[in-house]
């Protein structure tokens, strides 16, 4: 081989070797730090905004957002031991319950603190195509949803906090409205055998079966909110129990519910704790089957094993700041 050709070949081969060993730079000319952020599914849309804003401020950082259900988000750290920088959940109580405990690998807690930053409310989401869309109001929503030709959707309570919160809304409605049988009409009687709400020491308690297959077409259950909403937008169902921020983010119409029902109030006097859903089985060994009614509060934390703590802290601060500014798809700020 002529010497000059040898030199060119050597340069090309070494260049390819470098590229093949992970030297891609994403077009920035230098290696980027990956910031792994795991939010609950209902935060995915607003977190896209935070990701863009953060990357604009930090061109050297590639924010990678990966959504899961809230419990699965935490499990990525506690059970699957993945290196995660930021965790954000739709149920703040899960953090002390699941992460304020010792990580056997490090001898320290998975985390020691968290920042509640937003709240949300359950609403009845619908579209212009929904049956009786022009009739439904905050006053008659129960009667409209109970009509035999109306189909209703919830996400799977085994998998999604919005799912068991949907059931809680019907139980709270039965406490709030006189002569209400919404839990039975919308959920209970659409299983074989029917699900019943038992009074256990003053708490309306529903025990779910292991496999959640409704026995008729009135009630539709899907694994995650996105599939329920897809069904709603396609006209397969008429109404869905959903978070207000998600309904807004999907440009849906929605009916607001009274604070005594919608799980948005921080006032203990609302009595959310008077309803309980017992899941059909213990899907995760780390957390029990009981879900007791409480306000919907979002929280963010940085695991003690986060690879990039300083950046993670900056990202969490930006989440809180952006949340305070609000915007489409954001849950309401805690102070608002």
């Amino acid at each position, binding site marked *: 081989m002529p010497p000059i050709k*040898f030199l060119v070949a050597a*340069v090309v081969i070494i260049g390819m070797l470098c590229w093949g060993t992970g*030297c891609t730079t994403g077009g920035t000319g230098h*290696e980027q730090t990956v910031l792994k952020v795991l939010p609950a599914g209902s935060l995915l849309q607003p977190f896209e905004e935070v990701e863009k804003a953060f990357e604009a401020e930090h061109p050297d950082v590639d924010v990678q957002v990966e959504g*899961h259900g809230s419990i699965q988000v935490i499990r990525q750290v506690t059970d699957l031991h*993945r290196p995660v920088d930021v965790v954000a959940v739709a149920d703040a109580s899960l953090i002390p319950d699941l992460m304020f405990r010792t990580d056997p690998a490090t001898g320290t807690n998975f985390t020691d603190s968290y920042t509640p930053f937003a709240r949300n409310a359950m609403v009845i989401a619908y579209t212009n195509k929904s049956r009786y869309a022009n009739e439904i109001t905050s006053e008659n929503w129960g009667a409209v949803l109970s009509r035999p030709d109306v189909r209703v959707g919830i996400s799977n309570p085994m998998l999604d906090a919005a799912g068991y919160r949907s059931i809680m809304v019907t139980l709270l409605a039965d406490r709030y409205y006189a002569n209400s049988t919404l839990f039975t009409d919308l959920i209970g009687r659409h299983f074989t055998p029917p699900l019943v709400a038992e009074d256990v020491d003053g708490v309306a308690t529903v025990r779910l079966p292991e496999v959640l297959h409704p026995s008729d077409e009135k009630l539709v259950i899907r694994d995650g909110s996105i599939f329920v909403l897809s069904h709603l937008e396609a006209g397969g169902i008429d109404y869905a129990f959903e978070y207000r921020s998600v309904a807004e983010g999907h440009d849906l119409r929605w009916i607001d519910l009274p604070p005594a029902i919608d799980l948005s109030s921080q006032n203990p006097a609302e009595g959310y704790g008077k309803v309980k859903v017992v899941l059909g089985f213990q899907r995760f*060994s780390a957390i029990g089957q009981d879900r007791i009614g409480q306000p919907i509060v979002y929280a963010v934390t940085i695991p003690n094993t986060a*690879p990039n703590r300083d950046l993670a802290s900056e990202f969490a601060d930006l989440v809180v700041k952006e949340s305070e500014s609000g915007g489409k798809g954001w849950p309401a700020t805690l102070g608002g």
Partner: protein
Amino acid sequence: MIRAAIPVCILLVLSCWCAGCAGTAPASPPVTTPADDFSSWRLTVNGSTVTEYTLEQIQKLPATAGNGFAVSTVGIKYGPYICTGVLLTDLLAPSGGISEGEQAWISAPDGYLWVFDHDQVQGNGFITFNESLKEIPSPPLRILLMYEQDGKPLSYNDGGPIRVAIISDEKGVVTEGSAWVKWVDKIEIKKA
């Protein structure tokens, strides 16, 4: 000239190294997982009788292959894969099978559990989507205990040595990922 090229090559390698292209820690540490040595792994099938399997024993059972494609609760798709393994119904048969009114509880050492009713064990009652995640009528499905994905042994990171896969003879059929239990080590038959 060749001698002149050697220092050039050394300089190139060094510059790559200095630029973080070799030997430096990756931006995000890799997931720490046990090596893919499954020799101590055992699968317990607890039906009317209790049977324990090694991976080698599982691999000697009649194998089935099919198309598997899963989606997470937030819409992340995993696949499509060619899944190879043992049908759940075949695996349950030596332990007494599953009858009407019974359920298969499938769990893993990471603490995850999923429950299938009798109908699902027969391949019925699953929600299915096309590749655009639009719901479609379910074609015939089967539950597989997968040990090979796309012709390669299932790695630990992918849920190996054994994970649940919901398979179809058709391509592009997506099923809900909650049922795709990773790292399966126990199957129990229980009354509903």
